[in-house]
């Protein structure tokens, strides 16, 4: 049996129509994926009872034109009105959720955090003083990977293990999140007892975005219990 030429032609047309400019941008869609994981963090905070609003680097409310980083940057940068989320739990210190910001690790080396939830007072200080947040000020962070190649995944996973040793403190959560599954990456993280989730995408049939969101919810739940 030969291949149905109609099916091939339809796939070609449909594929061409499905390629958004973000996939063809220099970040290869990675910024879109980071934004998606950030949105799961926001959803988790809301599910745990937080009120959330979106503000730019100047403190202005953002409601319709949202601007995000396409490459890692400084939390205090005013070159663009970058959007972050302000997360407020009753009787708790306010938090902020950012995408693609630099954070200073234990060794004082600067690292990129794809998704970072930090204490709002620390974020304000960083914006005024033009310094990077310290890893101790991170409540939650996520390393997000929008790749398909499994070998590259192992390399990235190894570098993530190094990152965790630099930014992870007690009562702080670090996650490795990827759009593709990779048996070797999963085995590596299971062995090293790291928090990870692969295959995370809205079209996932195994409901892994929900499982990841539940992990974020637990992090917020524990934060509330510690702070009240």
């Amino acid at each position, binding site marked *: 049996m030969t291949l149905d030429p109609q099916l091939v032609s339809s796939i070609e047309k449909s594929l061409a129509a499905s390629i958004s400019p973000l996939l063809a941008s220099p970040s290869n869609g990675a910024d879109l994926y980071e934004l998606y994981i950030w949105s799961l963090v926001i959803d988790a905070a809301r599910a745990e009872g937080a009120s959330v609003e979106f503000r730019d680097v100047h403190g202005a409310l953002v409601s319709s*034109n949202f601007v995000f980083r396409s490459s890692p940057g400084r939390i205090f940068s005013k070159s663009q009105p970058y959007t972050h989320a302000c997360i407020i739990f009753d009787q708790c210190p306010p938090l902020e959720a950012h995408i693609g910001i630099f954070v200073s690790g234990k060794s004082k080396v600067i690292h990129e955090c794809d998704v970072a939830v930090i204490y709002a007072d620390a974020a304000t200080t960083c914006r005024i003083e033009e310094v990077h947040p310290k890893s101790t000020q991170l409540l939650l962070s996520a390393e997000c990977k929008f790749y398909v190649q499994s070998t590259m995944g192992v390399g990235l996973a190894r570098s993530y293990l190094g990152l965790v040793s630099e930014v992870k403190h007690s009562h702080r959560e670090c996650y490795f999140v990827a759009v593709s599954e990779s048996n070797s990456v999963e085995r590596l993280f299971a062995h090293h007892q790291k928090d990870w989730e692969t295959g995370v995408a809205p079209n996932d049939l195994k409901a892994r975005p929900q499982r990841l969101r539940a992990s974020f919810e637990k992090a917020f739940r524990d934060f509330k219990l510690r702070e009240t």
Partner: protein
Amino acid sequence: MTEQDAEDLFHRLNMILRDHGLAWLATQIAAEAAEGRASPKMLSVQEHFDSLFLDEAPARRARRKTEFTHVRPLTSKEKMDVSIKALRSVVVSSGTILPEILRTLIAPHGATISFVSETDTLPTILSEIESNQFASAVARLDELLRALSEEVRRDS
């Protein structure tokens, strides 16, 4: 679908990706497909003795079963599986992500999302309308990829 059909289609899809600015994805798919499939293989190997630590050499060297990792190249249909899986996890998911994000942002009608680096001057901007268009396009692509996947498996 014959092996030759699968091989041709694998290259054709990668060509389309390259023509639409997704050379990075085509490269990752080709590299993933070239990696092959690893499986354990038991082999009987001769044990080695260090004569320094033995009073006398054994008359016959012992052989024992040892597990090795064997990697075989993928068939063309397996390469098509890699391609379909990658298109679903990257292209299809990218189209489904934006509406989810807009929902989280409680974005009003006509909202936009821009991506720009600190050093860029030209942002990549996506409107709510474009987001919905891509979501419809990937829904159709997902259906077609499922049909293709069925076709690849049916004749295997």
